[in-house]
């Protein structure tokens, strides 16, 4: 399967994502530049983590105006698969391709740690290789990951199953102490209504080899590979 990984000025995890896709998973992956208009024939486009445009104004607010974002909006509109990781999630929210917004962590601190996530909906292109309720251990590293959305929107998202990942305790139960950034309803990852756009704060690309401390991130990539097959 062919992947596209976008580099914005200030992206950090673009190379790591390409490495995970090519070297670890044996996938074909093209590096895309923010000024590109073509997505290079990719079946899934990944917006990686980092600090695009220095996080000026708000995280993701400026990247949204990059030329490639027009192509990505069109691609998503046609049903193409798009995944935003961390800063990529923030960009997708700012571009209104995903509901809600991400703001400053409750603690005001930048958090870099491994967290436990529960798969809340395994019937999506991004989670189908996981079991419903499966626990994944993935790293997070962000200062602005507190997920916010209007209450009525949240209710509808829950009903439709758009919340794909939630922060939970090691036992899999909801626990406010295990919610690292204070996200509303402990939300860590959401999909759009059509389930072809997905954003998450944790980093699956940094959990793809035992050397990195775990391989649970492969579940997400395998899901996408299965659904594109």
């Amino acid at each position: 399967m062919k992947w596209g990984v976008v580099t914005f000025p200030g992206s950090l995890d673009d190379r790591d994502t390409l490495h995970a896709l090519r070297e670890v998973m044996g996938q074909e992956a093209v590096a895309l530049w923010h000024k590109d208009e073509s997505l290079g024939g990719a079946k899934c486009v990944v917006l990686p983590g980092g600090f695009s445009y220095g996080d000026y104004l708000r995280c993701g607010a400026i990247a949204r105006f990059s030329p490639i974002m027009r192509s990505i909006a069109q691609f998503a509109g046609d049903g193409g698969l798009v995944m935003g990781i961390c800063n990529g999630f923030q960009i997708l929210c700012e571009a209104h391709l995903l509901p809600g917004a991400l703001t400053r962590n409750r603690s005001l601190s930048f958090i870099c740690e491994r967290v436990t996530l529960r798969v809340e909906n395994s019937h999506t292109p991004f989670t189908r290789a996981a079991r419903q309720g499966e626990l994944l251990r993935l790293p997070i590293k962000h200062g602005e990951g507190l997920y916010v959305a209007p209450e009525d929107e949240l209710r509808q998202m829950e009903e439709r199953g758009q919340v794909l990942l939630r922060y939970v305790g090691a036992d899999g139960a909801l626990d406010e102490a295990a919610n690292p950034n204070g996200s509303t309803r402990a939300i860590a990852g959401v999909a759009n209504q059509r389930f072809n756009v997905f954003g998450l704060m944790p980093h699956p690309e940094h959990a793809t080899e035992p050397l990195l401390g775990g391989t649970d991130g492969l579940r997400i990539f395998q899901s996408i590979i299965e659904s594109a097959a």
Partner: protein
Amino acid sequence: MRVKVFVTPRQGILDPQGRAVEHALKSLGFDGVNGVHVGRYIVLDLQAASADEARAAARRMCDELLANPLIEDYRFEVESG
């Protein structure tokens, strides 16, 4: 024409930065601080024929980029002369 834009965390949305500053002020002994909100101050230098035109332009800029209505409120002042 100069337009001053004030962007603040939206009422009712958790504002950890404002909360932290509020705690710091209280620990300095400033009693009677009932709330603190930390936001952004943006100064626009606009070419506009009238204050109304500048206001309309500033409103569009706020709605489309300068503020995120999900998490932020904004207000602005047009400086005459």
